[in-house]
């Protein structure tokens, strides 16, 4: 990725009168951290980066940012929000268009063709983090890690995030402007994580997930980070009716996680953010990918690809599978 082009484009877009701010990535405060950047003017664009560390899906901010009451006599700020998107992130934008979470003319989408990002946990495990912010680059087929001025070449296979290994849309599916040439797509590998769970018998699967959900602290970061979990008032927070009790225990945690995953059936665009942010390391991606795969294989549907598509959960086909019906 040409950083100069990125920053130049970013500066142009951020300077536009009809743009409120540009969402991009910037270097974090230490180690491998990358922070979302809210760039409000051309100068701010100087800190933008795009690297294998840019895992965050910025599309979540399109619906996360609060809509405040407009004081009497004032007009609401209707300027556009610009954002940089990887392939997966762009699917979130498309899905939001399908669900009318945003209108197309409310956003400026800057597409970043993405050769795949790293798994940050794996990276930190293999190459311990330093207090100095580190840099990372794509280097041909490999990743190049630069810490404390020292360069380390790391093979792509070693660190590539699972979601990227399985990615089928490395190039943004929606954009107003594309930064650089599209990357060549690759054959998505087998989803071993999902298959491993599927291969277990039903009791072992329950045991596996019991162990996982038992760890859940119900911080709701998985929900909050998800670009498609954007209800103002989540049913899982409600008390009347109570879908899930607030007490934190295996039963309620499981109910919470099932409900969360189910609400994303046919909507999840597999950006993997839920799993990345989980402080309890629950492999949420497996659940979401399992459903996404079933939606794809059994129902021939893929969310976040076609802005004109009927929402999966609000449509049907007369010949939908019904082998499970008595």
């Amino acid at each position, binding site marked *: 990725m040409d950083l100069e082009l990125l920053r130049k484009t970013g500066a142009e877009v951020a300077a536009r009168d009809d743009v409120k701010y540009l969402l991009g990535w910037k270097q974090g405060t230490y180690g491998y951290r990358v922070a979302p950047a809210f760039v409000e003017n051309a100068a701010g664009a100087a800190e933008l980066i795009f690297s294998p560390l840019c895992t965050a899906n910025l599309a979540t901010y399109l619906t996360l940012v609060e809509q405040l009451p407009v004081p009497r006599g004032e007009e609401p700020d209707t300027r556009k929000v610009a954002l940089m998107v990887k392939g997966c992130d762009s699917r979130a934008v498309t899905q939001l268009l399908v669900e009318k979470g945003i209108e197309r003319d409310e956003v400026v989408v800057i597409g970043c063709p993405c050769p795949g990002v790293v798994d940050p946990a794996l990276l930190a495990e293999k190459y311990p983090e330093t207090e100095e912010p580190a840099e990372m680059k794509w280097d041909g087929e490999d990743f190049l890690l630069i810490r404390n001025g020292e360069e380390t070449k790391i093979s792509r296979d070693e660190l590539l995030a699972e979601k990227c290994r399985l990615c089928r849309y490395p190039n943004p599916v929606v954009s107003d402007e594309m930064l650089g040439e599209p990357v060549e797509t690759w054959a998505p590998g087998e989803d071993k994580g999902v298959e491993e*769970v*599927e291969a277990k018998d*039903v*009791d*072992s*699967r*329950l*045991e*596996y*997930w*019991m162990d996982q*959900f038992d760890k859940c602290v119900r911080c709701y970061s998985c929900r909050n980070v998800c670009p498609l979990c954007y209800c103002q008032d989540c049913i899982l927070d409600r008390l009347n009716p109570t*879908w899930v*009790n607030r*007490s934190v*225990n*295996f*039963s*309620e945690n*499981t*109910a919470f*996680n*099932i*409900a969360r*995953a*189910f609400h994303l*059936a*046919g909507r999840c665009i597999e950006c993997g953010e839920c799993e990345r942010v989980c402080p309890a390391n629950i492999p949420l991606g497996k*659940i979401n990918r*399992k*459903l996404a795969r*079933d*939606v794809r294989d*059994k*129902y021939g549907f893929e969310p976040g690809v076609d802005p004109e598509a009927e929402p*999966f*959960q*609000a*449509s*049907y*086909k*007369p010949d*939908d*599978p*019904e082998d*499970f*019906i*008595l």
Partner: protein
Amino acid sequence: MSANYEPNIVAFLCNWCSYAGADLAGTSRVSYPANIQIIRVMCSGRVNPLYVMNALQQGADGVLVSGCHPGDCHYMEGNYYARRRLGMLKDLMEFVGVDPKRFHMSWVSASEGHKWKEVVEKTVEDARDAGPFEGFRRRQIDW
């Protein structure tokens, strides 16, 4: 599992076909296991898939959703939506380790009193096979 374990089944039936079919089973004095409790909804499309999860969490050992045959929905399409949503839910539940025997869906028309009996028998038998649902059953924690 105790030998005289009786599964507790919660069933959601659409008013126009399956509930009427269950009524017909009654009118015809067709006898079937008493383990099943019916909640009447207007259409199988009304059944929020999370009801299934909720029923299991709240003490059901098995759940049944029954609606009109495809094409027969009183509301034209509700059963098609139900089929898609509940099919996905079944996939999800199985993946997290809920025995697929605990959740069934069926099409029972207003004229199928006998089919209703068969569906109930199958549902009860399967839930009996699967045993009491412990899984993520909500229970009073000690303290």
